[in-house]
């Protein structure tokens, strides 16, 4: 028996590794090892008041902190029957877009790109190809600027609260965001040029099941109460209230993340899944870019998630511009957050974080203190699918060269853009 071990995965968020065991040519065991410490934030939340919940759970993960904050707020608002204003909905969607732009630019340019170009880091890439890295940094900064303007801070936003915002962005802020976004439109074209020119990553093919929020208005990350699961020609719908059917997870000894399957199949969440579930988004410029990237849906190659992220960058910039245009047209109003009247209730929310489906669900007592909290994150949902694709990649690798296999495994792990801090925070035992 031989074993391939990647002790500590670099260029991902958090602490994880990969172990593959082989018996001759047969893969006997595959582990995505997650040894990130368990912070146990969900049980520690017990007894906390409703207004403390989102700021604490934001700290699950920095890269997805806006998504955690907004999903948390929505779950609590659902529990207390709060309906936020259309302006609040738009501003929250704008925050999601800002986070997605930052996260995708960070991942594509600083974490994934060095693999394709055979460099250890983006810093090393910058020494030879500064334009590519500067392009990524510009988009990344744009995403952060949106989050700062709307959320008050790029990481762990403070301005989004139950019922609305502390202080809504000013007209002038929106005007300057609009001009930054307009400048980014041509950057997005350059992204497609750059990604289309990368070497093909054709080393892992597999039937893949995808799950994503089905958006009522084509492309909202924030709205929607139905998850669609697509597997080959089959489609299934899971309502938000029944989210546990998606997450019949089991604890595994090698990981602090529990594994999820849908009707026995691992499934993939994230950019590629979103495009697969909501193909109506792929018109106009996106359709052209998709052709240039040679992306076909449904895809059978997890590496295509990188292409899907590039397409989403275009879509995020376009959608952020639309939102700002609408806010400017309607006139931004200095709305105060809706007052909160707590009650004993359970509320859940499902959204699309940059890496895929994110679920927060809380039960409150009549004073608005947490009785129990569940958080299910994209990387936890992806864990079983990541292992499946590790297995396929090893099986499909003709050379039994450890360095080749090891690089492919790392590239697959990174294509999922795992957020390991997130993955450790999981639903409580039912």
């Amino acid at each position, binding site marked *: 028996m031989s074993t391939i071990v990647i002790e500590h995965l670099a260029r991902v968020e958090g602490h994880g590794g990969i172990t593959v065991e082989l018996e001759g040519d047969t893969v006997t065991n595959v582990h995505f090892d997650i*040894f990130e*410490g368990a912070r146990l934030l969900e049980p520690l939340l017990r*007894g*906390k008041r409703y207004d403390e919940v989102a700021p*604490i759970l934001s700290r699950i993960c920095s890269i997805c902190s806006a998504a955690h904050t907004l999903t948390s707020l929505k779950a609590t608002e659902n529990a207390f029957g709060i309906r936020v204003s259309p302006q609040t909905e738009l501003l929250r969607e704008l925050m999601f877009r800002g986070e997605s732009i930052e996260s995708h630019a960070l991942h594509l340019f600083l974490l994934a790109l060095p693999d394709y170009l055979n460099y250890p880091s983006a810093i090393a890439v910058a020494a030879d190809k*500064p334009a590519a890295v500067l392009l990524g*940094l510009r988009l990344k900064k744009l995403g952060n600027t949106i989050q700062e303007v709307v959320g*008050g801070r790029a990481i762990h936003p403070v301005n989004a609260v139950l019922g609305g915002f502390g202080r809504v962005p000013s007209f002038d802020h929106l005007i300057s965001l609009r001009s930054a976004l307009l400048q980014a439109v041509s950057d997005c074209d350059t992204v497609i040029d750059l990604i289309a020119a990368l070497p093909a990553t054709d080393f892992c093919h597999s039937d893949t099941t995808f799950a994503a929020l089905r958006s009522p208005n084509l492309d909202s990350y924030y709205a929607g109460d139905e998850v669609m699961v697509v597997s080959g020609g089959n489609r299934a719908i899971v309502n938000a209230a029944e989210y546990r059917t998606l997450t019949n997870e089991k604890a595994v000894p090698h990981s602090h993340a529990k594994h999820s399957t849908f009707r026995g199949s691992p499934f993939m969440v994230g950019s590629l899944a979103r495009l697969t579930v909501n193909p109506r988004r792929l018109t106009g410029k996106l359709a052209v870019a998709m052709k240039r990237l040679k992306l076909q849906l449904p895809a059978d190659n997890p590496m295509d998630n990188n292409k899907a992220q590039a397409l989403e960058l275009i879509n995020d910039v376009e959608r952020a511009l639309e939102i700002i245009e609408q806010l400017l047209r309607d006139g931004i109003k200095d709305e105060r957050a809706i007052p909160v009247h707590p009650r004993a209730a359970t509320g859940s929310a499902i959204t699309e974080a940059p890496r895929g489906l994110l679920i927060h669900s809380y039960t409150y007592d009549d004073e608005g203190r947490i009785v129990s909290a569940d958080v299910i994150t994209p990387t936890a949902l992806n864990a079983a699918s990541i292992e499946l694709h590790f297995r396929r990649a090893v099986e499909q690798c003709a050379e039994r060269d450890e360095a080749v296999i090891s690089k492919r495994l790392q590239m697959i792990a990174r294509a999922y853009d795992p957020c390991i801090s997130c993955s450790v925070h999981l639903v409580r035992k039912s």
Partner: protein
Amino acid sequence: MSKPKVGIFGLTGCAGDQLVILNCEDQLLDLVALIDIRDFLMASSDGQPACALDIAFVEGAVLTTRDAETLRAIRQRSKVLVALGTCAVWGGVAAMDRGTDRGKLLEEVYGERGREYDSYAAQALHEIVKVDCNMAGCPIEKEHFLAAVAALLNGDPPVYPEYPVCTECRMRENNCLLIERGEICCGPITAAGCDARCPDLRIPCIGCRGPVADGNAASILSMFEQKGFDRQSIARRLRTFAPQEVS
């Protein structure tokens, strides 16, 4: 002068302080021209774990035996160790209510097997090793990081405000959320440095930068009581980011 060798590390946390470094989009390429980054797992796959370091930046809290071993190894190879962010400086959110029975919590989340996991209550770095400089913030401020690098390059220790958030809040001429609106604002006992970001947005301070050096917790507790909040929940709130025994 040769460039100082630098390592950037994360223990258990959200990686937000490392992300702040990567968020210095306008300065990143200049920064790497001034320092020689030898170990930065989140951003690079050619880390040199054996290399001696002039400066180590460490974020996150210590929650596992592995974290503690990693931290000791970093300490051993580094001349200056900087604790980056509130988790590293104070324990952070994972240290809230850290007297709670750990085994029980683990069992609740992971089932019986949970009790076997390598996991203990969060500890700040200084509870394990000697720390030369503490840079609080959840996350740290970008400007603080850049200023710290500049100071350390000159051989100076970085300096942070020793006054509460209220001082910055007053300088921004905000109305007081605590006195005028009766909201639970932790500004009076929280270390400044954020330019009163939250109260400036009409959001009460939640203490994410950790306690100010000479904060008078007893006096603020009695002020909260006068506003009608019960002592126990106030005390718990003040300890969300920094357990009392660390401060």
